[in-house]
Structures are given as structure tokens and as C-alpha cells.
């Protein structure tokens, strides 16, 4: 196994773990934690491809990760604000308790 494959292997597993968390947890905050893991897996991919890619001088992968971290931070902030908004109405941050709409 080359180093690149090692990193890609780790990030694929991390992505799957994050996805499993996002799909199975009830608490909206923990779903968000799963999403963060998925985003981090993608970041690891970018860096691995950058380091072992054809032209690392362009720093493309690094820049993408820098932007992805900033976007993820903004997204987490909005998500947590939504959790607070939900909590005001339902006194709970569980996804399946906030389920009044059906059809």
C-alpha cells in the first residue's frame, strides 16, 4: 500500500463513520458532529491528493481545504443557531421529536 492509498483509506472510513453517525443519531447536534466528520474526511482527501498529486506547487488542495474549513465553521454556527431555535419550541433538540409535518 502506497502512502496515498493509506490516506485515502483512512478518509473513506472516516467518511463512512461520519455518515453512519449523521444517519443514526437522534440529537441534531450529534447529526451535525457526523457531518463535521464527513467534511474532515473530504479535507484529508484533498491534502493527500495535493501532497502526492502531479503539481503540488499550485497549492490547489491546500487552498480548497482552507476554504472548506472556513465554510464548515460558518455552517456549524448556523446549524447550532437552528438547534437553539428548535429548542425554544420543542424543549428538545431531537430530530424525531420535532416532526409535526407529515405527508
Amino acid at each position, binding site marked *: 500500500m502506497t502512502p496515498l492509498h493509506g490516506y*485515502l483509506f483512512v478518509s473513506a472510513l472516516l*467518511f463512512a463513520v*461520519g*455518515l453512519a453517525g*449523521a444517519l443514526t443519531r437522534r440529537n*441534531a447536534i450529534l*447529526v*451535525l458532529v457526523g*457531518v463535521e466528520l*464527513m*467534511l474532515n*474526511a*473530504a*479535507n484529508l*482527501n*484533498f491534502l*493527500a*491528493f495535493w501532497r502526492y*498529486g*502531479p*503539481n503540488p506547487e499550485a497549492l*490547489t*488542495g491546500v*487552498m*480548497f481545504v482552507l*476554504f*472548506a474549513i472556513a*465554510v464548515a465553521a*460558518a*455552517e456549524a454556527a*448556523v*446549524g447550532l443557531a*437552528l*438547534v437553539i*431555535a*428548535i429548542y*425554544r*419550541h*420543542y424543549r428538545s433538540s431531537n*430530530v424525531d421529536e*420535532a*416532526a*409535526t*409535518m407529515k*405527508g
Partner: protein
Amino acid sequence: MTNGDYYQLLKLLAPEWTVVGTVLAILFADLQFWRNRSVAWRSAGAASILSLGFAAAAGLLIWKRAVTADLLGGTLVLSPTSQYVKLALLGLAIVTAWLCTEGEFTKHVGEFVALIALATAGMMFLVSTENLLMVFVALELVSLSLYVMTAFNKRSPRSAEAALKYFLFGGMAAAFTLFGFSFLYGLTGSIHLPTIAAKISWHAGDPLTLVAIVLVVAGFGFKIAAVPFHLWAPDAYEGAPAPAAAFIASGSKVASFFVLGKLLSVGLPGVGGSGAWKAFSPGWLAVVAILATASMIFGNLAALAQSSLRRLLAYSAIAHAGYALLAIIGGSQPALLYYAITYAVTSVGIFGVVAVVENRTGNEDIAGLAGLRERSFLLSVALSVFVLSLAGVPPLAGFFGKFYAFAAAAKLGSSLGYWWLVALALGASCVSLFYYLQVLKQVWVAPVPEGQGKVAGGWVVSILLALLALAVLVTGAAPELLIRFLK
């Protein structure tokens, strides 16, 4: 990059900066001068500033409509088509902003209108780039604005719930998109779409390529609400404030379809595979064909069972995403854009009518439209035009949208390989007539309920709705008027 380049960037993006300036003007005016005014006054004021600013941006776009540019490694790619799409987006945003004057769902209208403008700015950047990083950042700008707009009604638990669902699905979709982009970058060493296109064909048939395609299409499938990534749509349409739902259904759809079409046709042309009958081979054509099939079948069947008008619209939107994917399969940008723009105009119009009716009657069901003919003739006619256009009745715009999309898919490949998809789309359109006519039956046939008075929106909204209905009629009667700009 020299100072001249910075100046050029500033000049080429003048419409976008005008939009951003409008955001700041709205926030400033609302915060500084209008604190003690009524909500109705402030929403009208904010919508007026937005209209003025966007009219200026539209003027700049029309003035420089013949521009072509490709700057900074595909970060900024302008073409006449992208300029016209931006014009459409500005128009949709103006209508959405005026919808805020119908019904008081928040005290913070200034911020809401500013968010509409910020989302518009994101969409404008989204349609003028061929760079994966820009696509990701602009897409997130649009998404975050829409999540916040969806949650804006703080008195309504449903608004918060809709926003949370929209956000959680959206966050997962963003992670899928990012993961897919990372594979595209890994395979080609570039995030510039034409460079990716040149290199990705070496990897056709590679499992990694296929995974990248599936992940990216899944991420965008969420934005356009294609089955099986549609789960957020009915709740978001039902719970969100009417203008937010209108913008999710219109502007966001136009921008997402445009960028998905561009990503697949400009970035991944060599790895389409095939979705033709008995000649399936892995690639994005096959993936998109599956999404389109699932969306058309599920969207139409689920719409049949709805009693809430907004949920009906959501499932109809899912079905329409399926039809529009046919234009992407057909690889015809004019067909896709004609479809997306006319569809967006129609749905923003419907949500306008919904907003007025809900605001005056408080009833969100299809039955709430009973006897609308007696209560507001203008709204009845406008709603009928929009609904018939969604159903695809000639000579309205929806008919030609479907015609171009289906024709593009039918023409693709040799010996009509996609006939099965087109046949399915035609069948699904026939099924959809049933539930669209249910809506019209309420308007024109059902008895007027006792004790229900007239229904009328504000004069600006009424004029805008009439204009939208007229636009649907005109672009349907003479599709060349619109489609020649999109070629």
C-alpha cells in the same frame, strides 16, 4: 496579478458588487432610520431599495451583455448566457422581496430582504464560474442564506423544524459534494472544469471516477430536490415563510440546474457512460437517468395524495426536477435554461398567490382556494395560468419547456436510445394533469364558502403577479423570445 487585473475584476463584477451594495444599504436603512416604523412600512421600504439596487444591477448587466471573460483559472467565466441567467435571477429576487409585504412573519424584515439579496449574489457568482472551489463557496453562500430565511418565522415551530431538516440534509449534501470534488481533484490534479474535462477521460471506467460522479450528483440532487435526496423539500415548502419557499423553489433551482448542467457537460463530458435502453453503461448519464426516473414517478404519485397546497407544490417540484434532468441528459443548455427559468417564474408566481391567499384566509389547504373566482378574479386567472403551465398545457411556457427538454433527450445518441425515459416523462405529465386540475376545480367550480370575503394582495404584488402570468403566456406563445438569449 497586477493592479490592472484587480481593476478588471472590479469592472466585470460591477453587477454583483451593486447587489452587495444593496444588501448593505438595506441593512443600514432598516437599522438606522426605520426602527420605529411599522413592519409593513419597513418591508415595503426594504423591497423598494432592493428593487432599485437590482434594477441598477440589471441595467449594468444589459449594458455589458456581450461580455466574454475567463479570469483567474476559471474563477470568473462570463458569457452572454450567464449574463441573461443573472438577469432572470435578479427578476425572481425582486418578486420574492415584494412577497415579504404579504403577511407579517417576522419583525426583522430588513434582515430578511438583505438575505434574499445575499442569496442572489451567491447565485450570480454560482452561474459565472467554472471552478470547483467557487462552485462550493457560492453554493454554500446560497444554502446558508436559504436555511436562515426558512427559519425566519420565530413564532412558528414549523418554520424552525423545516429549517433544521433543510439544514441537516443540506449539510450532508455539502459533505457529499466536497468529497466528490476531492476525488475529481485527485483524479485530474485540477479544480478547473475544462482542465478536468481534458484529463478525466483517461480515467473513464475507473471506479473512483464513478464514485466521484455519484457523490457530486447526489450533492446537487439535494439542491434540485431529486429523489432520493428530496426528503427535505415537502417540509421546507410547508414550514418556510412564503417568500423563502418561493425563493427556494425559483432562484435556487435556476442556479443549481445551470451549474449542474455546466459541471456535467463542461467538466465531465468524457465520462457520461450511457443510460440508453439495453445499453446501460456506468457514467453520469446513467446516474442522472436513474434520478430523473425516480423523481418523475415518485413526485407525481406523492403529489396525488396531498391536501396541503404547499406540499402539493413540493412534490410537483420534485417531478419537475425529474423533467429538467432530461434536458441535462440531452446536453442542451438552451432547453435546460428555458425550462428552469420558465419553471422558476411559474413557481414564484404560484407562491405569490399562495402568500396572498394564506395571508387573507389563514387556510393552507387546497380547499382554501374554494370559490377564488368570486373572491379575486385576478388571482384566479393568474393561478390558472401558472398551474396550467406547470401541467404543460400549450401554449403556455411549461409546454415548450417540456417539449424542448424531452426533445433534447429523445435526440441523444443513436436510434432513440432514451425513448424509455421520454415515454415515462410523457406518461408522468399525463398523471400530473389530475392533481393540477384538482387545484383548478377548487378555484373555478367549488362553491364559495360562507362568510368568506374578497381576497386581494397589495397593489405592487398584484401588478407583479399579473406581469409574471403575462410572462408565462408570452414566453409560451413565442418561445423564441426567450430561447434566443440562452443559446
